[in-house]
């Protein structure tokens, strides 16, 4: 049975529905990301799980108990806030000890657990410092230690890495995963950063406009997006408008394309194709040909924009140590039809 289960969770603010019949579940010990653009309702969802927002309708079940009737202070969850929310007038050790103090745990045991928590986040040497005198990454670790020391049933992370610079963020991603695995705590991460969600999680829940878009493991969400929103939000994608004919053929800009069976009703559809799945070949031998209009060097990759009869397409080419076609060159583009994803057209779903 699922450890955390959201059942048709809904939140309305006046006329606005922030979270709309959202259902998903989280297994014990797993790391799940709630991913979506800002304003999609993911933070509101987290606040409802934490108990800081009332639920309009629906249920939140944690380990068999219904959380709706439990006040925030009795839910026993560990929370790491976007701003870290450290107590600035307390030392690191005092910050971490606060939750244990509230649980009336005696002093020797408290000291032992604070020490263990600080060791887990590699901060033992800074126990007596004040948070003010620490870097963003260090504060982040204090917040984590403080949330974990109470041995919560569930760890909630609200955009924990968004205030760090890019390099530190990558470091902390690995750290976060290590700490989560060592602590063995069930974790729900809220983030708008798709690469973070994919790098960290066992499963990704994609939300948009308060609704669930897709719930799957990161590879599947990236490789088999269910909606054009998911396809566009996770990584780069070419999105082509097309028409599914009654004869089951796929037509795009008056051409018939071969694609995988889609099982969709005839009508307007959208084709999604990842730019790294496209091969650049001679102008004559491609599925389509077009003129290179833009060329960007990304270090490990080249990004080409090619104007084709199907529409503008972007292509990512691994940097194999040689130069690529230049702007103005006519190239052919080809791909394995298996890699086309046929999705319901935007707005039609």
């Amino acid at each position, binding site marked *: 049975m699922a450890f955390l289960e959201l059942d048709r969770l809904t939140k309305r603010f006046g006329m606005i529905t922030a979270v709309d019949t959202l259902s998903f579940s989280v297994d014990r010990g797993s790391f799940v990301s709630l991913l979506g653009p800002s304003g999609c309702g993911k933070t509101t969802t987290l606040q409802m799980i934490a108990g800081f927002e009332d639920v309009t309708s629906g249920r939140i079940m944690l380990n068999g108990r219904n959380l709706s009737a439990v006040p925030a202070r009795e839910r026993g969850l560990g*929370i790491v806030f976007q701003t870290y929310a450290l107590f*600035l007038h307390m030392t690191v050790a005092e910050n971490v000890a606060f939750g244990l103090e509230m649980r009336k745990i005696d002093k020797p045991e408290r000291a032992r657990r604070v020490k263990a928590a600080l060791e887990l986040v590699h901060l033992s040497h800074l126990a007596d410092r004040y948070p003010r005198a620490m870097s963003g990454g260090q504060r982040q670790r204090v917040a984590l230690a403080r949330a974990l020391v*109470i041995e919560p049933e569930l760890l909630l992370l609200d955009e924990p890495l968004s205030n760090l610079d890019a390099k530190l963020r990558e470091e902390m991603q690995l750290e976060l995963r290590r700490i989560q695995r060592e602590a063995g705590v069930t974790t729900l991460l809220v983030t708008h950063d798709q690469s973070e969600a994919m790098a960290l999680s066992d499963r990704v829940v994609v939300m948009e406009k308060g609704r669930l878009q897709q719930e799957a493991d990161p590879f599947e969400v990236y490789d088999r997006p269910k909606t054009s929103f998911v396809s566009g939000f996770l990584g780069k994608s070419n999105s082509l408008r097309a028409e599914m004919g009654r004869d089951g053929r796929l037509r795009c800009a008056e051409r018939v394309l071969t694609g995988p069976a889609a099982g969709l009703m005839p009508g307007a559809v959208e084709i999604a194709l990842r730019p790294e799945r496209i091969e650049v070949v001679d102008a004559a031998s491609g599925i389509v040909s077009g003129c290179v209009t833009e060329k960007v060097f990304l270090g490990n990759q080249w990004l080409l924009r090619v104007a084709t009869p199907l529409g503008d397409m972007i292509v990512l080419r691994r940097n194999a140590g040689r130069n690529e076609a230049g702007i103005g060159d006519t190239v052919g583009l080809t791909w394995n039809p298996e890699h086309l994803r046929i999705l319901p057209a935007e707005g039609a779903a």
Partner: protein
Amino acid sequence: MKHNGPFAVAFLLVFAIFMLAPIVVVIGVAFTPTGFLEFPPSGLSLRWFRAILDNPDFMHAAWVSLKLALVAATVATAFAVPAALAIGRGSFRGREVVQSLLMSPLMIPTVVLGIAFLRFLTVMGLNGTFFGLMLCHTVIVTPFILRLVLASVVGLDKSAERAAISMGASDWTVFRRITLPTILPGVVGGWVLAFITSFDELTVTVFITNPSTTTLPVRLFSYIAQTTDPLVASVSTVAILFTVVLMVVVDRLYGLDRLLIGEGKR
């Protein structure tokens, strides 16, 4: 660093002299050995300071002022802190009305306030009582505390309180352990400012005291109206010294410029 031009330096100098000269004169006069106001003093004597101790009227007035300032500042703080928390973070109807109401004593001319208080206390049968005086001073000093506490409430991180709640803290524990320590510089600064304001208050107080509840400023004022001997100077000097010591203590604890400029975060 940019240096000030000669004109600016001259301006600042004149300004400082203008501000400080009266204080210097008062302190100088206080040390005179003669029986009249004299500056510069012809000698140095503590005669007029000893005279304060021998004057029961002044001693009593000083005691009333001290008690009044302590009680009024403390009562006003007890009201202003919850009010500032509600105004600074809440979004209830009439929030601005409540704020304007609490700040209004700053905007109403003090003479008008004095007359209003006089009428009010007479109707309530509290005229001339210490309690009545305390009520009025509480009203007068509340805006000072509210301003400073509001400034620190604005810098308050709501998620720190939520973090404490999620760890099992009760509302009272959150306030005592998280909220109050965070806004404490504003609260202490506001209290001190309120204390000094009450201790100095003359215009309103003149209307509502009677001989048994005369405060130090009122006593000084009426004393000058009758006689002019260096006693007023020595009393003023003690009051100035007292205020300065208070300011220095607060500055040491919390940094005065930060409090008065109103930067909420430590």
